[in-house]
């Protein structure tokens, strides 16, 4: 995969490049400030972009803004946004244009190399990778009489993993259950939440997130 990465901290930037190259990816371009991001993306037309939220010169949310701008001018570009902390609002903004090829993860997750590379693959192939912390926050909002309360513990776990953007096989593996029972749980969740049935992939994630955000 050809990638463009944006990260202002030299230590983390080198680490990220090393990690991605060792996994066989090609880091075509590197941006170390906010304004460099878009030109780099337009020049290299990568398969995916990995962007840090807080970048110079303002050290605010330059990376996130660049990600949103990039999705305007290069609508099919998969973007994985990394951040030192997660904010639900940012997730909502990123997913605003649809959950296709979007990732939003805590920087900590890079340490789990296999999972991080897996998330990157997923985003690059049009899937979604949403940080567990964001999903947990979405699920923990207390609404009285919410249909979420009627879910069993297992169904909640399945919903959580589904919202993070995992496919049935991965959900089955991480919960140590069969794909058949994952399928059954998902059916139950959709019925209880009164969501229209959709096949897998980003449309399912989108439906789930729209529900949680609503």
């Amino acid at each position, binding site marked *: 995969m050809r990638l463009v990465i944006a990260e202002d901290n030299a230590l983390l930037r080198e680490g990220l490049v090393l990690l991605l190259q060792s996994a066989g990816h090609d880091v075509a371009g590197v941006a170390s400030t906010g304004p460099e991001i878009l030109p780099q993306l337009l020049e290299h037309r990568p398969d995916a972009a990995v962007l840090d939220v*807080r970048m110079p010169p303002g050290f605010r949310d330059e990376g996130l803004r660049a990600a949103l701008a990039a999705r305007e001018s290069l609508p099919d570009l998969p973007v994985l946004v990394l951040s*030192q*902390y997660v*904010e639900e*609002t940012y997730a909502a903004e990123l997913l605003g244009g649809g959950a296709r090829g979007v990732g939003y993860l*805590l920087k900590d997750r890079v*340490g789990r190399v296999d999972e991080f590379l897996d998330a990157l693959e997923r985003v690059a192939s049009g899937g979604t990778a949403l940080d567990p912390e964001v999903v947990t926050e979405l699920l923990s*909002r*207390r*609404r009285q009489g919410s249909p979420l309360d009627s879910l069993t513990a297992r169904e909640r776990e399945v919903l959580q993993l589904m919202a993070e953007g995992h496919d049935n096989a991965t959900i089955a593996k991480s919960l140590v259950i069969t794909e058949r029972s994952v399928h059954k749980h998902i059916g139950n969740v959709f019925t209880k939440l009164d969501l229209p049935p959709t096949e897998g992939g980003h449309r399912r994630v989108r439906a789930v997130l729209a529900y949680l955000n609503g």
Partner: protein
Amino acid sequence: MTMDAAIRRAWLATRHLLIGAAVSLACYLMLGLLLLGLVATLLIVGAGILPETVQTVRRFASFERRRVGARTGEGVPQAYLPLTGPVAERLRHATTDPATYRDLRWVLAQLVYGLVLCYLSLILWLPAIIVDGIWCGVLGRRPVVLPVFDVLADLSCSWSRGLLQPPPGADLAQRVEQLTETRAGAVAAHGAELRRIERDLHDGAQARLVSLSMRIGLAKRAYDRDPEAARKLLDDAQDQAEQALAELRHVVRGIHPPVLTDRGLDGAVRALAASSGLSVEVAADGVTDGPRAPAAVEAAAYFVVAEALTNAAKHSGATRAEVALTRTPGMLRVLVRDHGCGGADESAGSGLIGVRRRVAALDGTVSLTSPAGGPTEIEVELPCAW
């Protein structure tokens, strides 16, 4: 006015005058004490007595101020130099404070008018009952003598107010004292905050990093001998690193939420509103224009809104809430209102106490109204130079 109501009013006025007479008697005692204190001070031996006496006079004067405030519905301000520190300083403040001499003037005057007015009111009761008993009770006309009690009590109030009210310039002295107090409070709050952060880092992230480093060390030792054990240790080490990061994020959020830096107060409050689980309307008036408020003010406002919305979502049963941020000259006003069941009890939760402390440290004010049945409203004013 009916006879009953007129009598009740007259009785309230008389009670005010009766207590005034008691204050007059206390004034008589205080004059004696002041003379004693003066003599003791001149003889050097009892230098400590005079400031104590002045302090006692101040207490009585404050009592009279409160009484006047309660009756007239308008408080009487006070402005004193603090009587603290070593004896010499206390003595200096007690004798140089113009308020001491104003109080002395009041003590002398109150001694006279307190007793005279009370005496008048007492001898007036018999004619009042006879005259108004016939005029008002029997003939049904408006009472004529009973209202005189009100006049007497009001007279006492306006004299006390005139004598006890500090001149306009004295406000400044009081303001300086108040600022000194809140500044000391702010410094203390800041110190407590630093200690809390230090403890959080020491017990949390720092301890985790030590344990992480230890595990990596053990893993290196085990690497050749027992690769499986080394792998297990490295797994643990990674867990520790992740927990350390989570704790650091938590500490950072408590100091200054990163979203404030990224989006400013308006954006950060909107983010809070979006994630609160309630339907929240945010109105920001003038907050986004011009220079931003100081970081500490923005953080305090942010925590006020966060706490209020959390409470609304958790306890009030509300589904809707409103947040208003208003910029006025020299002030940031934050108002959070939820349409829940009300009855919020400040003593029940510690969250609001923390908010109060943060706001007080910035010289701001918090007011909470939450009648049973709602709505709950919390209003915070934070002074700041924009």
